[in-house]
């Protein structure tokens, strides 16, 4: 049993697990723990949900117009000097 992950360890290695950066034998220990521990199953589910929700935070999708204009003006200057 000493070989098993504790719940506390589960909350520390979850990101390695989700990033598939956990060594194969640790993946087995991780999944074995999940199979019997409802608390850790909830926790891992919530980490996945956290990632999903963070991915939905709104982002600026276009460059502000004035900035784009300045960048294009820079290009023309660069071209002249080239």
């Amino acid at each position, binding site marked *: 049993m000493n070989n098993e992950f504790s719940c506390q360890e589960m909350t520390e290695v979850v*990101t390695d697990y989700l*990033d598939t950066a956990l060594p194969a034998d640790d993946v087995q220990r991780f999944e074995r723990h999940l199979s019997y521990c409802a608390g850790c199953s909830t926790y891992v589910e*919530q980490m996945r949900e956290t990632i999903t929700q963070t991915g939905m935070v709104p982002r600026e999708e276009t460059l502000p117009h004035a900035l784009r204009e300045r960048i294009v003006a820079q290009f023309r200057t660069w071209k002249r000097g080239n």
Partner: protein
Amino acid sequence: MPPPESSSSETALLAALRGGDENAFTALVDAHGAAMHRVALTFVRSSAVADEVVQEAWIGALRGLDRFEGRSALRTWLLRIVANIARTHALREARTVPFSSLALAREAAEHEPALPTDRFQGPDERYPRRWVSFPTPWSTEPDNALLSAETRELIADTIARLPDGQRIVITLRDVEGWDSAEVCSVLELSETNQRVLLHRARSKVRVALEHYLTTEFS
């Protein structure tokens, strides 16, 4: 996900750009400019400075065009230029924590548990290091708070208050959707340190959501 290498359309665009084609340039600006601006804002926070950083980055890219060999994706190359210039500006702004890879590595080396240790049973209790009480599951009803704009705002605010390294890494990985190799390359950070910072950041965002979803709505 960005392609690992420069695609053939990018190669054609670059050839046109080297010939001074303005349409090729604006196509590039429209494809990558917004992402570059967001990255600049992640590093420097002031929007005027971020604008300067992006402008400088494009000049740097134009000057360095001949050095770009297509070994990395064009996007990664541009973002790395932005990150380097943003770092220089952040130093000039006399930030207490410049975003050098060394400073980020130092932040990663500090010990910080994902959850307060009192969430787990102590060494003398019946099941040491197991939950004192299980986390409360979040509602998955279609009208639940998870889907609201307020939740997104809470996440954005939580991220804004994180230490620099954690804030930058979670923004690039989870808001921007970069893969870990790209984040490591742009930040000049080891995979391990990158993951430590991501882990802390995500753990804190989860705690903020937990607090919000189980205190306000139950």
